[in-house]
């Protein structure tokens, strides 16, 4: 059986990068409306990574992060994560509520993050669905604050079932107001899209690039 990930061409990787730019760009727009602050976005990265290296890429298994996770179902399947450092998460909550968060997250603070996660993932997926014409149904996003290894492990299990490698599609956003203080050293927030390996072909077919070679 051919490995769907190894056969992906450079042109198709470029398509995945653009998918990420469009999804994250729309999500950044939604976030900027919510926060009333400009939100910047970097050019997306598309990385074929070994299963074990994905958590390392996100900052190491023991790094404490806030993560909104959802599964995508419908015409294609995959996992989506929005990952932010806890310090950045606290800043976001303070911006929204106007009150300082204590060391532990308050119930209201948790709810703010949950809602931010809903809005971001919703706008990302809506854009992706409009772009591809595919029906994409998100599961209810779940928010957790824990070590990256614990949080990402669950979502990565699906991928681990069908191969050792996954394609990680990463878009980084940062809120301009926070730049001087926190975002720079903590790397801002990341959208990670991890299509299940058998979804790539459907995705490329939907966009009419299933037969595009790299040379």
């Amino acid at each position, binding site marked *: 059986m051919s490995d769907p990930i190894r056969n992906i061409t450079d*042109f198709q990787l*470029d*398509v995945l*990068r*653009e998918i990420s*730019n*469009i*999804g*994250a*760009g*729309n999500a*950044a*727009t939604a976030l*900027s*409306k919510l926060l009333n602050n*400009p*939100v910047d*976005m*970097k*050019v997306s990265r598309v990385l074929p990574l070994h299963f074990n290296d994905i958590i390392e890429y996100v900052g190491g298994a023991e790094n404490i992060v806030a993560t909104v996770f959802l599964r995508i179902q419908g015409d294609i399947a995959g996992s989506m994560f929005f990952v932010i450092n806890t310090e950045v998460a606290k800043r976001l909550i303070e911006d929204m509520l106007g009150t300082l968060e204590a060391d532990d997250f308050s119930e209201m603070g948790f709810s703010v993050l949950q809602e931010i996660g809903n809005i971001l993932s919703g706008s990302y997926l809506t*854009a992706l669905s*409009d*772009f591809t014409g595919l029906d994409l149904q998100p599961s209810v996003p779940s928010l957790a604050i824990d070590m990256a290894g614990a949080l990402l492990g669950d979502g990565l299990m699906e991928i681990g079932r069908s191969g050792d490698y996954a394609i990680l599609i990463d878009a980084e956003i940062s809120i301009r107001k926070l730049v001087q203080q926190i975002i720079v050293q903590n790397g801002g927030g990341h959208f990670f899209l991890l299509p299940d390996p058998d979804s790539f072909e459907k995705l490329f077919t939907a*966009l009419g*690039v299933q037969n595009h070679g790299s040379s």
Partner: protein
Amino acid sequence: MSAKILIVDDAAFMRMMIKDILSKNGFDVVGEAANGEEAVEKYKELSPDLVTMDITMPEKDGIAALKDIKKINPAAKVIMCSAMGQQAMVIDAIQAGAKDFIVKPFQADRVLEAINKALG
């Protein structure tokens, strides 16, 4: 004579999509560029009637490229085409001289409407 268009986007796929829409509707796509730096070079070389310009790109972003192109030709017609549709970004682009702002993902009609309006 059909209008000469320069397409600027870092994604080859997006360039292909826009080119397809434009070619089918009688426009002449004279060139493509994959970043802002290249866009400015190609603009000088080709003197297109209109440029479609992505914003988030490596090397030089689309807003910086728009400003450079406007320095070369203050009458240059540039339409921004980006997934970053937030107000501050749109205002930035329009103030720098962009004719219109298309948010990705887009419909072919929206692209044609913007181009026809800008050229009209």
